[in-house]
């Protein structure tokens, strides 16, 4: 089961390790701030699928699902609970 705190930590770690910034706010918009580019967005989505065993389906293909640490974690938790149910 992917619980919210755990997921957030893993996502935050992945982003921090990849883009090497010191203090990333969980709600900081990664795209608006220019912190990440389109290449990294694909890496993040691929990571989320592999790490948490969720699939980004046709209806999930929206940047809002991955725009911040919080948004990405919430997406994972939503998809995971959907699968359990």
């Amino acid at each position, binding site marked *: 089961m992917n619980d919210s705190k755990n997921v957030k930590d893993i996502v935050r770690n992945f982003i921090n390790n990849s883009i090497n910034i010191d203090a990333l706010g969980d709600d900081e918009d990664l795209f608006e701030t220019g912190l990440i580019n*389109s*290449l990294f*967005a*694909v*890496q993040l989505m691929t990571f989320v699928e592999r790490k948490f065993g969720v699939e980004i389906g046709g209806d999930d293909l929206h940047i809002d699902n991955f725009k911040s640490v919080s948004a990405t974690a919430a997406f994972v938790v939503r998809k995971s609970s959907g699968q359990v149910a």
Partner: protein
Amino acid sequence: MNFKTVGVVGVGNIGSGVLASLVLHGIRAVAVDVSEKSLETARAGILQTVRLAPVLRKDAPKLTRNEVLERIAFTTRLEEVSTCEFIIENVTEDWAVKKPIYERLDRIASAGVCFGANTSCISITRIGSATSRPDKVIGIHFMNPVHMMPTVEVIRGQHTSAETLATLNRLLAQLKKEAIVVNDLPGFVSNRISHLFMNEAAFVFQDGLATAAQIDAIFKKCFGHKMGPLETADLIGLDTVVSSLDVLYDSFKDSKFRCCPLLRKMVEAGHCGRKSGRGFHVY
């Protein structure tokens, strides 16, 4: 008249990107490479790129796996590009590899078909000389990731005709891309300059002046570049960067293009950048 089928020869990093871009714009493709393994890697990469494209571009169509695979014929037989209306070549940056491919393509493709050379540094005039149709050979330097980058560097070789440029512009219009057309000398504008940046950044790293992250951060945070030189080198592939530097060095015989020894050592160690999971950064 719109292009319906384009041949893509060489399906590494950039070739796969070209294929994804073609498919996203409704153009069929014949994808050629030397091994089934390369084709399989490309197939997986293209499916992932196309599937996630709508997140990054609102205008990208949502295509199913089958729709993507139906639009691309993967093959190890170069002859299968014979029915294509335009051919884009993206093979290894090595004249000994490229030359025989162009000689074969010249025999395989119909007389009116143009060849787009997606080369990093090799002169388009030189490539044209390997064919009987130098007027129909033109350089197309796609940028990575191909489906996201709106602009390409287009290179007019010594004999490239105005008709060929017009033909390429039609294809680029279908791909919703704009061309910046330049003249031909090895490395053109982009790589002749960018490889000096990347090579010198590798020397700076080798000399222990700064970490890779710091070097990239100076370009991003001080110069406002979207990416630093070392992460750009990792993205291109350090093997390709070394090959391009070697072409520039051989072409100009100018020591400013000498390849940083550390770059060559990293390639020999298999640390070729993003595609191999490790280069100046770890992926």
